[in-house]
């Protein structure tokens, strides 16, 4: 059992584990909305949009959380407002703002010297640098996000399932959708230290998509997503500790592996289950959303690579 208890002997590692669990649970829970409302692209955009806020806060010496939250909120608002009109489609609006914001972050970096090492931690996460104050912020934010998701579960579910009907009932649809984006932003911000800007999308999508393959109801999907996210945090963190791999990378790879296993073996929606009962009367099950691939890995890889060329990441 040493392999289980050894890593817990140091406070440094205990903190990292707690942060990973908080991140995983929050991402996994809100992930139900990301998957069902097809917000993966928006989630990706928001994670990049917080980047200039992070850089600015860092340069100005503000709390990183505040800078990221402000940048994310502005972007959420911009996306929501621009895509409200019908001339610019939502994905176009998102593309414009997220690439623009990310570019701003890159330009801001390029004007600084000596920050590359820390900033690369924001791109891919740096669990071991997490302090108790970070954990307090993450836990409080995570609990708030989940609290709002629970308190407004009916309203958010209604707007997600049938926007037109929600409007007809007189619900403030725009405000609720914006709220969801803000919750998403907060989730992304607390995830930065664990998995970073680039990998957070995986945590927003993969646990929830895995849960969707296992259950057919919304609330169970959300609970299972949160539980799986937390579990991936624990497993990934242990893997990272014992094999010396990047913690963020290990957590996300754990999530990916679990998804693939469930995708094949799920008793209800799995590939094998479908093969085994290929009778026409059973083919009424609707298709499940597949998590989208990472569409623009090239540009980020280039940034990370250039950062790492200058400052090879140590552990």
């Amino acid at each position: 059992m040493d392999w289980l208890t050894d890593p817990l002997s140091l406070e440094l590692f205990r903190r990292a584990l707690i942060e990973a669990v908080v991140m995983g649970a929050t991402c996994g829970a809100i992930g139900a909305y990301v998957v069902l409302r097809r917000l993966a692209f928006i989630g990706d955009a928001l994670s990049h949009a917080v980047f200039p806020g992070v850089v600015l806060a860092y340069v100005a010496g503000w709390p990183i959380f505040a800078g990221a939250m402000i940048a994310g909120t502005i972007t959420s608002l911009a996306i929501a407002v621009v895509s409200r009109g019908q001339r610019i489609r939502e994905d176009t609006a998102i593309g414009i703002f997220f690439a623009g914001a990310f570019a701003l972050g890159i330009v801001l970096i390029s004007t600084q010297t000596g920050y590359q090492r820390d900033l690369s931690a924001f791109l891919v996460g740096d669990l071991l640098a997490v302090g108790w104050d970070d954990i307090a912020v993450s836990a409080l934010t995570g609990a708030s996000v989940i609290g709002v998701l629970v308190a407004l579960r009916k309203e958010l579910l209604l707007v997600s399932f049938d926007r037109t009907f929600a409007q007809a009932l007189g619900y403030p649809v725009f405000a609720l959708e914006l709220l969801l984006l803000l919750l998403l932003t907060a989730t992304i911000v607390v995830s930065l230290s664990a998995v970073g800007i680039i990998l957070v999308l995986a945590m927003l999508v993969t646990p929830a998509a895995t849960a969707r393959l296992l259950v057919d109801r919304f609330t169970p999907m959300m609970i299972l997503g949160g539980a799986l996210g937390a579990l991936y945090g624990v497993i990934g963190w242990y893997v990272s500790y014992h094999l010396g791999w990047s913690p963020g990378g290990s957590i996300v790879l754990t999530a990916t592996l679990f998804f693939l296993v469930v995708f094949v073996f799920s008793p209800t929606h799995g590939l094998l289950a479908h093969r085994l009962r290929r009778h026409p009367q059973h083919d009424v099950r609707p298709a499940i959303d597949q998590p989208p691939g990472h569409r623009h890995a090239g540009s980020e890889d280039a940034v990370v690579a250039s950062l790492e060329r200058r400052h090879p990441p140590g552990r």
Partner: protein
Amino acid sequence: MTTAAPPTLELRDLYAGYDAGWALSDVNLEFPPGKLVAVIGPNGSGKSTLLRAILGLVPHRRGMVTLSARPIDRQRIAYVPQREVVDWSFPISAEQVVLMGRYPRIGPVLPAAPADRAAVAAALERVGMHGLAHRQIGALSGGQQQRVFLARALVQEADILLLDEPMTGVDLATEETIGTLMRELRDAGATVVYATHDLETAADISDLLCFVNGRIVAFGPPAETFTPHTLHETFGGELMIVDAGDHAHVHGGGHHGHVDVPKR
């Protein structure tokens, strides 16, 4: 229905549209309580827009919509959107969808009360879906999905029901259920307004017909409005009117069936 007197829905100088130009212009209508009204017109004529404009769901709207001379109270209007507007692979059950009609009564934070659950069960029973309450909605047939939407409107216990093409793409049994239900609601004092493609059924079961084509072409009882002239004004070249003795056969282009129109 509520204890208050059944309200009259009134549209005054209503214009409604989505982007450039009005999809619907100069609408002046009065829907008296206790009437079943069919809104008839070709695709893109503004049938849906009319229903959506009443609820304020179109981006641009001018004019007035009142309920007994007061601004509309959305709680008193139940809306059944077209089936295509939602993602049926969503992981919820028929019962959960129907419960959504009660959300405004339940309010935020709180769970559904036993009375709400009972209303949901009763509505599902009424549309012949009681055995399928726990079925995931994607596993239901088109007709069953439409019944779920209908049950969701029922639990609102509204005075006015607006249904957007409830009979399009459903099986015959569902069509009959919907027709019966709409008449029952009408008999109970509700105003029921539904958009439809089916001229024949509309003329058969409705108290009033509302012909729409970017404007209101005609509004009144079938005996007065269901004329070759109105049909031509509404459908233009889409309809072929064939003289067949004492009745004119009308063949709807793209619409199913043909109808007999009394010649006058």
